[in-house]
């Protein structure tokens, strides 16, 4: 088992860099979701990764660098997709990247255990005439399923190099890169494909392709591919050729002819034929020996069963939350006591303005270190594990019908759970949803999920001064709020819900080092967002308070805080503090009154303050993310909706609780 042993020199001297200029390569990883594409990416790039966005799009773009032999190789991890239609952003981005940016090599990562489905996409990569190499991954999973693939034959049929790999263990990746470089150097001749559609389709593709060539439309895409896409009635490609009436008309007529012969719309004919080809290739070169029921299948049965499936789903969700909170609290207290030695962490509200500002900055830093990191890292670690192993897919499967009640499907559960750790990554996580409407609905629900910071407030105010059962009741009540408000939003926001179409891939044992790498990359990107806001925001509110700027606002708010919610007069200030970081509600209170808060607040006031703190407004970091993902208008509307529902529920709770407590 040859482990991958690349070196990753992060810096190279400027001179050497320039000399190597002609030895730079760009390669793109393309393939279906869950075939181990990101594992290949992580193995190849190590820690040299930049996670960002595709320009102007809310689709994640992962880029990394690999130094291999004499080459500096830029690797782009394209989104996991099944086809090149225009109906999803990911598909559009991928095909535009391949056509416009023209990477030196496209590595198509293929799941050897689900060959037919994967080849459907491979055929499209061949059609788009990318300099292709196939990475036949998950050979181990295929073997367990009793599938043997004839690699030589596959290579001959496709006309491109095929390299078998087990990416989680690093097997075959060195060979993959060697072959990649050969393709980049044009040492391997990529043969013109012999893969053809049925005659009545193929002749029409050729006719149209010739016409496109003749018309000289100067397209970035190859003519044959454009012809196929036109026959498939792809709206984007149609737009590209509008200036040639002849091509548009010809494609319409030819598509209609095909539709008439096959008695099916032309795009359905082409999809069928492509799958037919994929099926022919796959069944010709793979042998499947029937093995006994694998552990994976048994697990599959257990996790989707109508009784045990719910038990495992509940177990997974509860386990994830429990693990996050115990680990989070443990690490948090460890870190805060370590940092507490340096300087008092509680917000300082009197003294010189410099010391107050410094205390604010430091407090913000400590909050980031003690609140975000301890919760986010354990959470991501386990989330990555249940995601990579395939358990999460089963949980999404079981929870789909419940999520439908709030207009979302099973996949939305993932970011929602994430919201219990920290809202910021959770809202990022909404990208797994298909439409903007669904992402928006999920993000709205997430803003009510009590994150780690809000947990501090609930525990610090209610569990300590009123009783643990009341803190628990608040949690349960919050679930009800998420569900009710989520449902209202679903009814109010116009649009149709898309249904769930999700591949249920086999169970896998995730690799620890990949888990660690992914966790670190994710945590890093959160830190970049949250830390600056924490530092500046904390200093700002504390400084503003010390300068007496907040007092008038507090007074102006008192009709709400005191009159409607029955809170002490200082509440307005606390809520302003909390807008930056939710835990400042508790910390600010302690800074003003000292630790024995029971002398100043009644039990009802504790509960109402915690309740309001839980839902009144997303913190600044969350608002910034909301604005980044959905625009300022949506972020404002969501914040207002939070505020309005918090005020309503808080006021009612104050009046009702007064009767009970």
């Amino acid at each position, binding site marked *: 088992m040859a482990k991958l042993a690349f070196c990753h020199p992060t810096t190279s001297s400027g001179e050497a860099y320039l000399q190597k200029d002609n030895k730079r390569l760009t390669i793109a990883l393309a393939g279906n979701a869950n075939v181990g594409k990101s594992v290949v990416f992580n193995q190849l790039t190590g820690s040299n990764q930049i996670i960002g966005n595709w320009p102007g799009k809310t689709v994640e773009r992962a880029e990394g660098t690999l130094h291999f032999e004499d080459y500096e190789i830029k690797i782009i991890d394209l989104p996991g997709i*099944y*086809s090149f*239609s225009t*109906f999803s952003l990911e598909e559009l981005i991928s095909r535009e990247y391949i056509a416009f940016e023209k990477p030196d090599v496209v590595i198509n990562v293929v799941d050897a255990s*689900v*060959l*037919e*489905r994967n080849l*459907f996409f491979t055929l499209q990569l061949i059609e788009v005439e990318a300099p292709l190499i196939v990475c036949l991954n998950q050979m181990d999973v295929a073997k367990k399923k009793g599938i043997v693939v004839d690699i030589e034959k596959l290579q001959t049929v496709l006309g491109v190099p095929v390299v078998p790999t087990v990416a989680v263990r690093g097997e075959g990746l060195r060979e993959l890169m060697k072959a990649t470089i050969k393709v980049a150097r044009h040492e391997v001749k990529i043969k013109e494909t012999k893969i053809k559609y049925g005659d009545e389709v193929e002749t029409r593709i050729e006719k149209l392709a010739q016409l496109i060539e003749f018309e000289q439309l100067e397209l970035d895409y190859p003519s044959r591919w454009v012809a196929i896409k036109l026959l498939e009635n792809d709206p984007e490609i149609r737009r590209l050729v509008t200036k040639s009436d002849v091509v548009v008309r010809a494609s319409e007529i030819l598509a209609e002819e095909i*539709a008439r012969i096959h*008695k*099916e*719309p032309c*795009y*359905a004919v082409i*999809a*069928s034929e492509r*799958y037919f080809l*994929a*099926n022919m290739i*796959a069944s010709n070169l793979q042998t499947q020996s029937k093995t006994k029921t694998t552990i994976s299948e048994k697990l599959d049965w257990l996790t*989707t069963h*109508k009784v045990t*499936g719910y038990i495992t789903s509940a177990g997974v969700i509860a386990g994830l939350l429990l693990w996050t909170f115990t680990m989070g609290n443990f690490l948090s207290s460890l870190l805060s006591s370590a940092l507490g030695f340096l300087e008092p962490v509680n917000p300082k509200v009197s003294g010189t303005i410099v010391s107050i500002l410094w205390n604010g900055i430091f407090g913000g830093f400590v909050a980031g270190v003690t609140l975000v990191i301890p919760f986010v890292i354990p959470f991501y670690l386990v989330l990555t594990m249940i995601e990579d192993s395939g358990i999460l*897919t089963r949980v*999404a*499967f*079981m929870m*789909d*019908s*419940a999520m*439908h009640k709030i207009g979302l*499907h*099973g996949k939305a559960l993932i970011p929602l759970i994430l919201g219990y750790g920290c809202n910021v990554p959770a809202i990022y996580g909404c990208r797994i949803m298909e439409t903007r409407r669904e992402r928006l609905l999920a993000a709205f629900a997430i803003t009510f999920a009590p994150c780690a910071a809000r947990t501090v407030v609930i525990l610090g105010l209610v569990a300590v001064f009123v009783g643990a059962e009341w803190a628990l009741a608040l949690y349960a009540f919050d679930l009800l709020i998420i569900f009710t408000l989520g449902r209202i939003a679903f009814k109010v926001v116009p649009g149709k*819900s*898309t*249904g*769930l*179409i*999700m*591949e*249920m*891939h086999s169970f896998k044992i995730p690799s620890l080092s990949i888990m660690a790498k992914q966790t670190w990359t994710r945590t890093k990107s959160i830190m970049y967002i949250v830390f600056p806001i924490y530092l500046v925001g904390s200093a700002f509110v504390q400084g503003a308070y010390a300068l007496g700027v907040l007092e008038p606002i507090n007074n102006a708010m008192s009709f709400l805080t005191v009159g409607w919610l029955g809170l002490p007069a200082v509440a307005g200030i606390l809520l302003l503090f909390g807008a930056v970081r939710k835990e400042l509600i508790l910390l600010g209170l302690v800074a003003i009154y000292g630790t024995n808060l029971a002398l100043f607040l009644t039990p009802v006031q504790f509960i109402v303050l915690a309740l309001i703190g839980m839902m009144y407004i997303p913190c600044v970091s969350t608002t910034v993310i909301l604005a980044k993902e959905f625009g300022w208008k949506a972020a404002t509307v969501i914040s207002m909706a939070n505020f309005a529902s918090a005020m309503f529920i808080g006021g009612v709770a104050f009046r009702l609780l007064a009767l009970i407590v």
Partner: protein
Amino acid sequence: MSTEAAISRSIEEYLEILYTLTRNGSTASTTEISRQLRVSPASVTEMLKKLASKGYVKYSPYRGTTLTSEGIKIAQKVTRKHRLLERFLYDILKIGKDLVHKQACEMEHSLSDEAETALCQMLKHPDKCPDDSKLIPPCDLQFSSCEECLERRGEHLEEVGKRNQNLFSITDLKEHDIGKVTMIRGDRKVLQRLLDMGLTPGTNISVVRVAPLTGPVEVAVRGSKLALGRNIASNVFVEVLEN
């Protein structure tokens, strides 16, 4: 109304009720039918015997009644017309949910096939009826998708031709059942997604799991497994093969 028309109408009513009652794979009892149609059990028994002699139902006095494939064919057709009419009355004529059922019951027997197809196209291929969200059965024309029906709008229905086999929604199947994908209802976007995932017409699928509480359906297709949300799965229609 002629006696003949009255008889065929009554047959359709019976088959329609039986179709709804046997949807989950169970048999229909005489008492249940008599309760729903508000006729005496004795006349129900008499009618069931008559339907059995025509080959529409399998009737057994103790084990209850099920539809034959010929019976299902007629039942699906009339149920489809009924539910389409309900949609029309509710969506276009804005008649209240509580009233549409009775009105549709009256109209369904006289709706021609051409009118049925035109209605379906105008309503943009609805999949559920307004009052109780039951699934509208697929048409019996040889279309592989609603998109195809739209593309071939100008053609006569005779040119299109009718199916020989009854179609069932994937959500009607039980675990381990095998079916051949024949018709997909939905717009181009949904259709393209399903095609891309390998659910092309003529593909065999087998049901692996049906999640409880109207959850998704897991199907095995092309050597892999797919989870389809209930709304999507209910609009993929298959010919049932041996299981």
